[in-house]
């Protein structure tokens, strides 16, 4: 047995462009088939006579292959290499066969041939468009509990993958002078003239090979060559030019603002054994100065009764299968058309030795040339006739043909019916670019009219049918878009083209027998099972806008997004409404042109590259000490340091105790840092913080509060003055970027007269906080050039010095209430300094501590955490920090907002302490506070618990809360009602430890 016969009984010897010796084996629903390299799954299966490929969405009707391209609504399959590389809803007409592919049909149970869901087809009279809006309402709960689950199971197509994807995806930004979408005659020609100018050109085509319609159209000659051969030669010429990029298997899926286009390149889906280094697909994000749209047109089907059986396909698709793949779509083929182009399918098949039963043309007057040729080939042409109906269970077996106007006709036995209602220009990308269409009534089509971006449409998508005109249009478009107007640049490369037949004809809407208002199932949208009568029903029910009709019937909303169905649906609606098509309108074309894999859009942003995980210079050392980390913004911060056998609670208790008794070392590097430098630095900070800064002396630091114009707390931090004109500002970890943006905004926009500059130094410094009674003892040996005694370097001092030879900034600052220092060293020195300090700290009995202990210790002192104890609705006074708002300043950001009626009213929520009556009860952060726990719901809530911890140092729980009139409620008992109990609390001061504050100054 030769390879070619092996690759299917319907291969036609000598036809097609594949090499018979190069085969690939794949399975379909468990059965093994042999294909030729270059086959699509559709052509490979057709070569074996397999037409039944799937089931429709709603009625589960048997469906086959309708098209040979991305517009395919029916033949959607599940394609896999292995469990982690399985892809649902793959178009059989696009997917190339590769050796080892496992392919399965979808939306059927238990099998494609015997599908229980097909029962729906019998009930179809009930399932009219929108029927579900009218029922399933009783009883109330039944929709969600009963009906919806049934509908959901019946709907859907493929099954989502079950495992994570092991393929990877690439991404690239690119720029060009001219991007050309589509490499048919028009696109290739435009590329030639654009490239000749030296412009940077990207030519994009969705198929494996360039040529577009030349894949099937064998009667066109260009530049003296067969059209397809000319296309390949032209592509080779273009690829050899340094200023041209040709992307095959690449779809322009979106045309966005300002010349931005999204492209997806399929890299490995056609390969049997792709290298692991290859991405499966690549996303191109191209900024094009100009765009040439040469996207061609798509053939429409005919709308008539039972037009959806397997074996019924577009005439051009049959030509692609024959002329490109060498596959005959049947043995007894009829053609039903309203357009001349389908005649050529009959000619090609006839010449290949296939029995062409008849050409049924619903027109009385087809093009003269095709009619003459048909007759000379001895084909039976039935003019003014229509196909009224079809029969056949899993494949069409006969058609009923009648003279137009007659209700019955004769039956013709066929195994295939080719249909064509004419061609719809592909204006998707033009429309996405926000260009406006006009209706060409003569040819029943929408064409580009007013352009919104720097692009031009050429060829079939522009309604240019004549080949010579098209070549001329493409040549000048390419040159013009590349910036060279006029004939000169074109003449040198001009060439001629010819085709055998001029095409005429076309129709939109329901054909004979399916209108004007019958009950037959004449499908408009195959995948969604929308029939002509559904559209009529929608109009009858008052849906007069095309968008209403679309949404009510779901016409055009399937995965082909109406490429075949929109024009027919529109025409039927127009007829029913009695309004011309332009007045009915067109639904919007949205990106993507064809569906795009999420993984491709995600590209590299997965796993570690999903979002940068920021780590401090000491991260690895902390991890080696057993740290658990928490996410704070995109930072990873050491949370606590459990020792062997300790849970979080035990570790935090130990850390809390050790810091107050001895000392602790804490990584504070993530705090935001901004260097504020310039003669007006203090004046600037005066405006940005509520505090006054001109009184702060160099060598000192101060706690500052920042509000926005609205007067609510925005951020806080310690600000050190290093020199008259230099401040070291710290911010919260999460607040750093927005605080800098906020400062720059005011500096550049409101206070540009101030001579001051801001530099982010967050990452310049590694910050090692050492806190506790032994803090000074711990750091003392490392600090050079600075007296750090309490007298010389009191609380809130700051100085530059040297630590272990590294230039350092030392802050005397405390967030624990103990003696505290923050050692800032250039980041690369952080690990060495940290190790040395930790070694000494350890020898003195101190510990490492993390953010959890930091939180507990600061809460024991009643220190605020912005974002936890405040939420964007809290003023400095609410938080008990009214003292930080300068009374002397005449201006600062927030000064007016703070005086608004609601911000100064009585009864605002204020930050207070809470002590539970039961000292062992730790409140839930977020618990709500009420005065009367027995009141009916909805209860009046006085506030909520913002911070709550077990304080090992106090041997009881502590909490902070925002409570209405909180400071006036000291000693009052309030309640925190939980799901299963009510917790009584006493309102207290926020400071729980060392109320006098003596420890900090030791």
């Amino acid at each position, binding site marked *: 047995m030769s390879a070619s016969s092996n690759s299917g009984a319907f291969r036609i010897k000598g036809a097609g462009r594949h090499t018979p010796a190069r085969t690939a084996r794949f399975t379909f629903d468990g059965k093994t088939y042999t294909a030729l390299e270059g086959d699509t799954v559709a052509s490979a299966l057709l070569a074996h006579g397999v037409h039944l490929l799937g089931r429709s969405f709603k009625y589960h009707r048997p469906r086959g292959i309708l098209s040979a391209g991305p517009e395919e609504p029916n033949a959607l399959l599940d394609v896999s290499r292995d469990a982690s590389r399985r892809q649902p809803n793959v178009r059989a007409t696009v997917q190339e066969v590769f050796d080892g592919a496992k392919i399965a049909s979808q939306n059927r149970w238990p099998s494609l041939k015997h599908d229980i869901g097909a029962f729906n087809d019998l009930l179809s009279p009930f399932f009219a468009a929108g029927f579900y809006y009218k029922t399933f309402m009783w009883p109330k709960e039944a929709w969600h509990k009963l009906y919806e689950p049934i509908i959901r199971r019946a709907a859907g197509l493929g099954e989502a993958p079950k495992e994570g994807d092991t393929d990877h995806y690439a991404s690239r930004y690119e720029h060009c002078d001219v991007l050309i979408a589509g490499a048919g005659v028009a696109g290739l020609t435009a590329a030639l003239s654009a490239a000749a100018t030296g412009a940077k050109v990207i030519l994009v085509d969705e198929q494996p090979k360039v040529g577009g319609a030349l894949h099937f159209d064998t009667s066109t000659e260009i530049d003296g060559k067969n059209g397809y051969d000319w296309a390949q030669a032209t592509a080779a010429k273009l690829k050899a030019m340094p200023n041209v990029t040709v992307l095959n298997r690449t779809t322009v899926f979106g045309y966005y*603002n300002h010349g931005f286009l999204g492209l997806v390149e399929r890299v490995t889906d056609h390969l049997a054994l792709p290298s692991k280094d290859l991405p499966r697909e690549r996303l191109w994000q191209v900024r094009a100065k100009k765009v040439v749209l040469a996207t061609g047109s798509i053939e429409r089907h005919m709308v008539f009764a039972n037009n959806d059986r397997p074996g019924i396909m577009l005439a051009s698709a049959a030509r692609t299968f024959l002329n490109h793949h060498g596959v005959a779509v049947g043995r007894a083929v009829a053609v039903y058309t309203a357009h001349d182009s389908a005649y050529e399918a009959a000619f090609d098949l006839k010449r290949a030795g296939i029995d062409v039963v008849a050409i049924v043309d619903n027109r009385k007057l087809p093009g003269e040339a095709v009619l003459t040729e048909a007759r000379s080939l001895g084909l039976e042409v039935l003019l003014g006739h229509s196909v009224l109906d079809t029969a056949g269970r899993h494949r069409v077996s006969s058609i009923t043909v009648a003279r137009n106007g007659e209700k019955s006709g004769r039956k013709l036995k066929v195994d295939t019916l080719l249909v064509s209602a004419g061609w719809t220009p592909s204006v998707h990308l033009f429309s996405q670019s926000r260009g406006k269409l*006009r209706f060409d009534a003569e040819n029943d089509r929408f064409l580009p*009219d007013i352009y919104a971006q720097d692009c031009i449409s050429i060829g079939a998508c522009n309604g240019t049918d004549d080949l010579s005109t098209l070549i001329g249009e493409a040549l000048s478009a390419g040159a013009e878009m590349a910036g060279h107007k006029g004939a000169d640049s074109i003449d040198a490369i001009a060439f001629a083209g010819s085709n055998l037949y001029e095409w005429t004809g076309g129709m939109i809407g329901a054909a004979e027998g399916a209108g004007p208002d019958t009950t037959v199932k004449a499908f408009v949208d195959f995948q969604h099972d929308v029939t002509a009568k559904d559209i009529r029903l929608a109009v009858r029910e008052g849906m007069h*806008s095309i968008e209403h009709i679309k949404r009510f019937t779901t016409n055009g909303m399937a995965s082909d997004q109406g490429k075949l169905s929109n024009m027919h649906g529109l025409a039927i609606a127009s007829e029913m409404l009695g309004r011309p098509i332009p007045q009915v*309108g067109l639904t919007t074309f949205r990106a993507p042109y064809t569906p795009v894999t999420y993984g491709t859009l995600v590209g590299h942003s997965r796993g570690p590259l999903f979002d940068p995980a920021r780590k401090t210079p000491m991260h690895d050392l902390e991890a080696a000490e057993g740290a658990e980390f928490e996410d704070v913004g995109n930072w990873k911060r050491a949370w606590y340091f459990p020792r062997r056998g300790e849970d979080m609670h035990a570790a935090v208790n130990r850390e809390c105790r050790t810091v107050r008794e001895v000392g602790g070392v804490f990584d504070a590097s993530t705090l935001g840092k901004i260097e504020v430098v310039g003669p007006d630095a203090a004046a600037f900070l005066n405006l940005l913080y509520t505090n006054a800064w001109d009184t702060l002396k160099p060598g000192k630091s101060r706690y500052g509060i920042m509000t926005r114009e609205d007067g609510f707390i925005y951020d806080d931090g310690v600000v050190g003055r290093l020199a008259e004109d230099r401040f070291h500002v710290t911010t919260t970890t999460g607040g750093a970027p927005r605080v800098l943006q906020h400062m720059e905004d005011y500096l*550049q926009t409101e206070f*540009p007269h101030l001579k001051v500059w801001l530099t982010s130094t967050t990452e310049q410094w590694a910050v090692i906080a050492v806190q506790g009674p032994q803090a000074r003892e711990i750091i003392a040996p490392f600090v050079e050039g600075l007296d750090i005694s309490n007298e010389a370097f009191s609380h809130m001092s700051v100085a530059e010095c040297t630590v272990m030879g590294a230039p350092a900034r030392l802050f005397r600052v405390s967030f624990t209430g103990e003696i505290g220092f923050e050692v800032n060293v250039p980041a690369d020195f952080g690990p060495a300094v940290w190790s040395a300090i930790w070694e000494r700290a350890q020898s003195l009995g101190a510990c490492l501590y993390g953010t959890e202990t930091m939180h507990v210790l600061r809460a024991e002192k009643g220190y605020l955490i912005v974002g936890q104890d405040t939420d964007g609705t809290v003023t400095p006074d609410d938080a008990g920090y009214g003292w930080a708002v300068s009374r002397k300043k005449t201006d600062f950001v927030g000064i007016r907002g703070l005086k608004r009626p609601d911000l100064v009213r009585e009864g605002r929520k204020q930050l207070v302490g809470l002590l539970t009556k039961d000292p062992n009860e730790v409140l839930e952060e977020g618990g709500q506070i009420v005065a009367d726990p027995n009141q009916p719901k909805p209860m009046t809530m006085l506030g909520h618990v913002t911070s709550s911890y077990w304080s090992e140092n106090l041997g009881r729980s502590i909490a902070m809360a925002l409570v209405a009139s909180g400071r006036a409620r000291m000693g009052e008992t309030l309640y925190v009602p939980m799901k299963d109990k009510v917790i009584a609390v006493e309102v207290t001061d926020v400071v729980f430890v060392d109320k006098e504050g003596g420890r900090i100054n030791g």
Partner: protein
Amino acid sequence: MLLIHCPYCEEERSELEFRWAGEAHIARPDNISAISDEEFAEFFFLRNNEKGLTYERWRHIHGCGRFFNAARDTVSDKFLMTYKAGLPKQPIPAAAKAEAIAEEKTIETWEQTEGDAR
């Protein structure tokens, strides 16, 4: 993704490098602590939100870091001009305006093109 001309970098760059910063030419009152509640609400909250020509601020945050001003048509999202911060509101040249207005007539929002092809 917009393409924005930065008047400081003197080049068009991807929107990814920029951050939008609200309506332009809203000056913070010099006597802000003396204005009324109504005036404060006006200054802080009320924005024109024009459908059509709008003046707005952008910051080239991942580029030169500068805030600058732009005139843009919020219907087509086309920029009519960008100019440096501190400059007064720039008049739109008649030609550019004519083009923008002509476009405004023909290129309406999507919701209007839906159901209304010519």
